[in-house]
């Protein structure tokens, strides 16, 4: 069979986000895949060296558009570690609730993309509708629909507005009520099993070797979750469980996402119950003059896609000296995807890519 080169280019129905893969194809079988990112590269780490610590705070959440909240959190944690800033108790709880809401929202977006890719348009419409309900919650809390700019070093930017607690509870109940419908139409659907079982299979050794974290790792049976491994915010004050699956293929990855969503909703209810009263922000010094002491730090948190880390170097100036984000889609998109696409079929490219939860802006930064 003749060997062809196919551009699974940025403008393609099977592609979510701005990312392209060049495939060496023989008939329907892919011989070799080469990821080709860079369409969304804005040079964040260069721009952040030109802005002061507080000016970076609105910039930093623009790295990943699907889920900007964990990146705000990671930046705030890094600055707090370098500058030894204490965060009040209630702020930990508000942050955890905010991050879990963001995780559910981000998983619903992933579900929309994945269900659309597999042709389940009904489930995609439902998922996007429920995500929109969560965006309304964010708009109520932070003032922004998608980019919330809410967690800044020292705590969070505003406290809960009055009556926000039961707004969260009502929204989550309305979403939770639809879970049996999701299960019947999508998760327990035989077609989904046929379409996703055995696709993009990777063993635990391969996952470890390729630096995969998050669902890709938990789908192979490893209970590796940064919220348990290195607890931050209020995750160690609430008992919850890390959902795990065995087979490491697309089917179990999507199931891990489903269990994680349900786990997050339960966790939010628990966090809401024992959230203490008190301030949510202790003031950082004057933004024009604030100099973070010299030093470097690597902090990490569990974003909806895996381990999100930030290596930050400061040399005592009012601007960061060097910032490097370790985003979870980076190894997923560049190594795991290329390895999994070898001798897969063309029809499964979208399936594998979205089940690996690859988001283009996280790779390019």
């Amino acid at each position: 069979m003749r060997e062809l080169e196919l551009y699974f280019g940025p403008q393609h129905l099977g592609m979510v986000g701005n990312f392209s893969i060049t495939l060496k194809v023989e008939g329907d079988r892919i011989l070799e895949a080469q990821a080709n990112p860079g369409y969304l590269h804005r040079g964040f780490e260069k721009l952040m060296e030109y802005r002061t610590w507080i000016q970076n705070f609105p910039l930093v959440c623009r790295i990943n558009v699907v889920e900007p909240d964990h990146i705000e959190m990671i930046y705030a944690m890094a600055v707090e570690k370098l500058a030894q800033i204490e965060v009040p108790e209630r702020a930990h709880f508000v942050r955890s609730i905010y991050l879990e809401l963001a995780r559910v929202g981000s998983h619903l977006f992933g579900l929309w993309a994945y269900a659309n890719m597999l042709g389940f348009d009904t489930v995609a419409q439902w998922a996007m509708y429920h995500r929109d309900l969560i965006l309304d919650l964010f708009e109520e809390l932070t003032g922004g629909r998608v980019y919330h700019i809410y967690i800044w070093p020292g705590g969070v930017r505003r406290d809960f507005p009055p009556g926000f607690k039961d707004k969260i509870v009502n929204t989550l109940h309305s979403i939770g009520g639809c879970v049996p419908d999701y299960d019947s139409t999508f998760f327990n659907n035989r077609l989904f099993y046929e379409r996703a079982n055995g696709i993009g299979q990777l063993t635990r050794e391969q996952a470890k070797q390729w630096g995969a974290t998050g669902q890709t790792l938990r789908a192979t049976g490893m209970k590796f979750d940064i919220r348990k491994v290195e607890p931050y915010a209020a995750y160690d004050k609430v008992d919850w469980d890390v959902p795990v699956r065995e087979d490491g293929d697309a089917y179990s990855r999507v199931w891990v996402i489903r269990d994680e969503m349900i786990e997050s909703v339960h966790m939010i209810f628990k966090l809401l119950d024992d959230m203490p009263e008190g301030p949510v922000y202790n003031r950082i010094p004057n933004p024009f003059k604030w100099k973070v002491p010299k030093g470097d730090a690597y902090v990490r948190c569990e974003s909806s896609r895996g381990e999100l880390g930030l290596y930050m170097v400061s040399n005592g100036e009012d601007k960061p000296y060097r910032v490097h984000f370790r985003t979870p889609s980076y190894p997923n998109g560049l190594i795991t995807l290329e390895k999994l696409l070898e001798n897969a079929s063309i029809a499964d490219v979208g399936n594998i890519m979205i089940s690996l939860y690859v988001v283009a802006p996280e790779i390019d930064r």
Partner: protein
Amino acid sequence: MKEKTTNKKGSILSPFKAVNYLFKKPRTLRYPFEPKEPALRYRGFHLNDWEKCTGCGNCADICPNEAVTMVEIPEIEPKPGEKNERPKLDYGRCCFCGLCVDICPPGSLRLSRDYFHIHFDTNTFTFTPKDEKTDKEHFLGSKQYSILKASLAHRKENYEGFVSDIDYSLFEPQRVSMPEVSPDERKLSFIEQVIGYNKEEAKAEASRCLECKLCEEACPAHLKISDYIRAIYEDKPGESLKKIFEDNPIPSICGRICMKHCEAACSLSIRGEPVAVRWLKRFVADSIKDYETALELQTAEPTNKKIAVIGAGPGGLSLAYFLTLKGHKVVVFDSLPGGGGMVRIGPPLYRLPIEAIDKDVDHIASLGVEFRFNTTVGKDILFEDILKEYDAIYLGIGTTVSYSTKVKNISEAHLALPFLQENKIGSGTKVGKEIIVIGGGNVAMDVAREALRLQHMQYPGENVITKTVSLEDWDQMPATEDEIEEAKAEGIQFNPGWGPKEVKIENDTIKGLLCVKVKSVFDEQGRFSPTFYEEKKMFLDGDMIIEAIGQAPNFSFIPKKLFNKLEFTPNRKVKVDENGMTTIPALFAGGDIVNLNLDAVTAIADAKVAAEGIHKMLCEG
């Protein structure tokens, strides 16, 4: 190991359960027919209240995308504490993060809940935000407002969204509290009331300054305030002192008694406490023991021109400093035994100790200025001789003669300045148990608080009382607000709105003061001509009366024929041109005899102008 979760295969028929959605209400919002309101905290387009906005420019400095630029607005006239600039927004750059709202000291910049602006021309995306208070035309009531026509020129009124909240603001509204001696302890002695910042407190206070430079425009001498505060923050007191000395050679004095025009103009003072600019200047002056080494000043090579300065007050001292730096030979004459002029005898020791004054004066002397103390011009040396011998003369004589109310047998009462001078550098005066001070200005406050201290020292343990009587009512009192507070804290009794009528004398001891209720203090043109309700009287008993109702300058040493050539402004101040020169050539003047607001920093500003004038005259002339 948990039991292995077998992959449930799922059934082919389960999706049909979704059929029951057929009978449910559709989830689609019928937008725009049913409008959907954004959340109460939504971050939409900007609103700026032009009355509250001071044009300080902090929003332009904080913006990460340089979307905010300050724009000159011609119809706003700048005044202390406000520039005539307003922020202009470029929605081709703005990311609606709201940092400008959180940093805005007056809280005038807010985000509304409007977000519709769709246009084919990119120039319409830049605009200077106003709000419904000042711009009725673009903000419409809910009846005329329609979503389809909504844009930056067609917005809803009272539609505020993300608003600044003082607990989450990016500036620190509270000032670092200054350690002070407690009121009841300080009224027993003359120790200095304000103890002064230590290094950490000064750095913390200096870190509050947002460097919007409103204070520098409000300060009569235009000190480089944000630079010297930044130097304190960066632990460089030497450099900070250099910045101060560029405009003000007497920081130790000004750090204690300045009228703080800068703090009144500070943008943080609107919703919080202003940056303690005066105390920071004092911290710099106190923390550097020897100015010499820190400043490394070199005077220019001598120009063998001689300048005479009459009066070693703040104006005289500054002129001497500026001109010695330029290489001229300066001689300062003063009738008092030491430097400082009014500042030496006026403010009592608990506000301005003598060592603080001498520290500045000695430094200026060390630069080569010759001080001739205890020489009154007109008595020990004649004015005509000075005119002949020196190339230029500067009148820094200030207002040294106390007014008197000339009420019936007021001759028994003391005058403020001699009373203060006697206590500060003289042998001290005997005070009575009940003292009445006539007057409501800062000098009256100093006299009253000093009298209270003397009472406690001379009659320890007995109950003593000091009362003040002033024509002006509470809000019209010329004394600064914190002076009045401190005096009240020390237990001084105020009787505002009463005028002195007659001093009651019985067998030649003072029994008290008969007062009458004041109807009005100033007439229509604002000139001082009080009117009274003659029938409403009050008798204040007291055994000692001190008058502190203002001072006048003493020009007696100038010969008549020269004095007539000197022109005066309508409110009896010396007329000077833009170089500070009076109508008599080579005679310059400045300070309280020229300006309306009588304080040290204005005198320094005049001295700086006069120094340039003299230097220019001597070099070209």
